[in-house]
């Protein structure tokens, strides 16, 4: 065991993957010698050479186009998009190409070796273009897997799974956690399952669901609620696509109540999918409406970030509203 922050855990996972298989390549804007603007890839060039960890020209559609081609050739392509907000120029390559590569070819070709890493989310005074949580934009796309970790331990295990998974994975890194705190992380290789949610804490009155950095917010809200005598079950969704309907439904069948907290704006966010599915799966067991605590339907703001942000107070209020419905 070592103490690592989330960035170190990611760097460590990349290191292990590259050591293990010399067809693993890491690249993106400034990810070469410099190690990326957040330094997630630092040290990799020194260890594996400029051919395996390198800079790309400044063109996201090219990065993913190149990565698709490289993965289809049989390599493990680990592409970094510098900020989640800048993934959109690559949207066509991801949604029309990556996601459909295997299906359209009848499995003659695939890009299973592709992993797209990108920092995402707010809380760093980044305004519109350094704060977005883009998961919902991709979640409507069969063929992709989408994963996000809530802490360093999860980050390493999920990233190692993602890199060697035989499907393309969009790996979203909650950047406000990058250096926020450290956690225990085994030094050796280990993996965590994709497509499975993680029940962080059991409880019986209400289910709190989130992914990525919002898990922490839910935990804080739950602490407040527990003081009021409300027993919260906390679930980290971990995989957004495919998502673990079973674990969530099982929990809600037990608690009868669900609060989903999401950084992104309300409308057509991923919380909507969860609510739509769970109202069906648990219809007769729901004791109150499923609550979505989300960003407002505005571009991510700068000076009102604190107000916009889904914090523990907002989740706590939603818990109370749900209990008192």
């Amino acid at each position: 065991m070592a103490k690592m922050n989330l960035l170190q855990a990611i760097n460590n996972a990349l290191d292990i993957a590259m050591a293990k298989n010399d067809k693993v390549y890491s690249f993106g804007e400034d990810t070469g010698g410099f190690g990326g603007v957040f330094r997630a890839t630092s040290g990799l060039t020194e260890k594996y050479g400029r051919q395996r960890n390198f800079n790309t020209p400044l063109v996201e559609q090219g990065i993913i186009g190149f990565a698709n081609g490289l993965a289809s050739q049989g390599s493990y392509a680990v592409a970094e998009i510098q900020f989640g907000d800048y993934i959109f120029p690559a949207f066509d390559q991801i949604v029309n190409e990556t996601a459909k590569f295997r299906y359209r070819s009848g499995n003659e070709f695939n890009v299973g070796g592709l992993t797209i890493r990108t920092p995402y989310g707010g809380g760093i005074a980044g305004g519109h273009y350094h704060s977005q949580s883009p998961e919902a934009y991709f979640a409507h796309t069969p063929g992709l897997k989408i994963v996000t970790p809530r802490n360093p331990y999860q980050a390493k295990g999920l990233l190692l799974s993602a890199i060697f998974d035989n499907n393309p994975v969009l790996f979203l890194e909650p950047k406000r956690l990058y250096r926020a705190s450290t956690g225990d992380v085994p030094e050796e290789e280990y993996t965590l399952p994709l497509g499975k949610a993680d029940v962080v804490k059991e409880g019986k009155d209400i289910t709190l669901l989130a992914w990525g950095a919002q898990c922490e917010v839910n935990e804080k809200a739950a602490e407040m609620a527990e003081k009021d005598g409300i027993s919260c079950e906390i679930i980290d969704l971990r995989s957004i696509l495919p998502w673990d309907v079973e674990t969530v439904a099982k929990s809600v069948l037990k608690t009868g109540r669900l609060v989903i907290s999401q950084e992104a704006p309300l409308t057509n966010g991923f919380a909507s999918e969860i609510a739509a599915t769970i109202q069906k799966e648990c219809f007769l067991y729901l004791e109150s409406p499923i609550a979505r605590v989300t960003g407002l339907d505005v571009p991510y703001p700068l000076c009102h970030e604190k107000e916009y942000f889904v914090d523990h107070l907002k989740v706590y209020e939603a818990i109370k509203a749900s209990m008192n419905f």
Partner: protein
Amino acid sequence: MAKDTKHNIDIVTEASFLDASALTIPMLQILKEDGSEHKGAKLPEFDQALAEKMFDTMQFIRILDERMIAAQRQGRISFYLASLGEEAASIGSAAALQDGDMIMGQYREQGALAYRGFSVEQFMNQLFSNAKDLGKGRQMPVHYGCAELNFMTISSPLGTQIPQATGYAFGQKMDKSGHCTLCYFGEGAASEGDFHAALNMASVYKVPVIFFCRNNGYAISTPSQGEQYGGDGIAPRGVGYGLKTIRVDGNDILAVLRATQLARKLAVEENEPVLIEAMSYRMAGHSTSDDPTGYRSREEEDGWRKKDPLARMQSWMINKGWLTEEQAESNLQEKKAAVLAALKKAEKVPAPSIDELINDVYDQPSEQLKAQLDELKAHIRKYPDAYPKTSGSID
């Protein structure tokens, strides 16, 4: 002239603006329109067998296109797209490759695929979206692909394969495979951002890729000159990216073969990415959904008919004594028969199983997908008449 040491650039003290005229790129031609060789032209490497294979493939594609356009008119297939007039470009370039080289096409390169060995049955199975289609009937006609033949499955969104080719070639280089990737695209697709990304990245990474632009004068109804681009076509862009660049007569199979042979050497032996611009003309409509009389003149088309690459090669073959008119004609008839027979066979092959609807979305269908399929099957069982293609074969 002074020099700036930082940038290693010449310094001038008088402002002057360059434009397209600063770089004019000539076109390589070996066969004249009448099929005779330019005197002193340096020929590609070839022997009679290679020439015959190229010619044979050109004839096959001519027939295939003709028959399948007819089949579409008869309602037997939903869509078709011919490469009429551009056979030399795809076949001459494919003939310069090794079988282990990867080909990524746009959609009008059936010639390259046939040259690689895709059988007439395989063509038909794809065109009829039947259970034997390697693509499992999931894509529209002409979206061929075959891993065994190193021919990447065609994708409709234009330009996307170009940066993919750069990435694929990067892997080939890292693997020290001794192979390259040849990527076809139209002059229309060269307007996409992906084109720019691909060529620039190839130049930076020095990968064994050959970008092969078929400049056939049109993107559907949009003429290339002045509406697709304002400069001198696609080739000068290669110079801008620092790629090895050449322009060839796309209707002259020997010029195409020669340029691509040299390009392959540059790519594989020196990791030099290359851009080839092949000047040609789309003799047919864009596809069976198109009617070109709405946007171009009969005279224009007639002018190009004189440059027909198949006729040109045929004259050359006959001059060489490698072919007679009669042979050419009887070969054509044979091919017609083979295409027709394969067509009839393929249209009788049933559709792929409904189970294929959820396969290959992921390497394994997710639980949700299995549930969705089960629900669908139950529905089909309830209304078998409404889904006649699959209700009979449902398990």
